[in-house]
């Protein structure tokens, strides 16, 4: 199954600033998924990143707030822009690992102060 390296693992950021999260996959994948997990909550999909096209955002998430890049089939970034304390969450990337199910990065724990 695919292995995902996600960075940073955690960060504490000032409100109003931006943070870029990176995910590197050890194999080529068509789609990458970005999820948010608010404290004590389940995972909610932010967007689907397809190489060579604009990301597809879920209801309630917009590109200006969560711009995504997908420059090739093994890499993607999610930026959390103009952060506020409400953005404090765990952010995870994921890919379809086929029979092994969906594989997740180790997550980025973001705290906005």
């Amino acid at each position, binding site marked *: 199954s695919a292995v995902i390296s996600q960075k940073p693992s955690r960060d504490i950021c000032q409100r109003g600033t931006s943070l870029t999260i990176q995910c590197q996959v050890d194999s080529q994948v*068509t*789609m990458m*998924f970005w999820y948010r*997990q608010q404290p004590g*909550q*389940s*995972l*909610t*999909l932010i967007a*689907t990143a397809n190489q060579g096209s604009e990301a597809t955002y*879920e209801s309630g998430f917009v590109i200006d707030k969560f711009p995504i890049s997908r420059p090739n089939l093994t890499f993607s970034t999610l930026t959390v822009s103009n952060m506020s304390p409400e953005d404090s969450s*765990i952010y*995870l990337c*994921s890919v*379809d690992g086929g029979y*092994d*199910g*969906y*594989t*997740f990065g*180790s*997550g980025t*724990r973001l705290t906005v102060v």
Partner: protein
Amino acid sequence: AQTVTQSQPEMSVQEAETVTLSCTYDTSENNYYLFWYKQPPSRQMILVIRQEAYKQQNATENRFSVNFQKAAKSFSLKISDSQLGDTAMYFCASTKQGAQKLVFGQGTRLTINP
């Protein structure tokens, strides 16, 4: 739209006991997949077991098995001989066939007591 519901926010059992976590889902798809994921405090999402909807046979993985009731849209997880390392959040999830997004339930916090 797909929805997944886990009605048990928390469960607690003694080590070596058997525990069953409940999950119901709703989908209009004919072909879909169901999953149980485990998230320990390390926050890493770990696949526990998966089930293809077209397969009638319930999936099993060592101490973990599912009771898949397609008509009732129910997908429960049974953990046998529970171990301390099973303590984690457990999420039920579903997806349409073909590298689609996962839809997660609310999660069940499972604690295994010594």
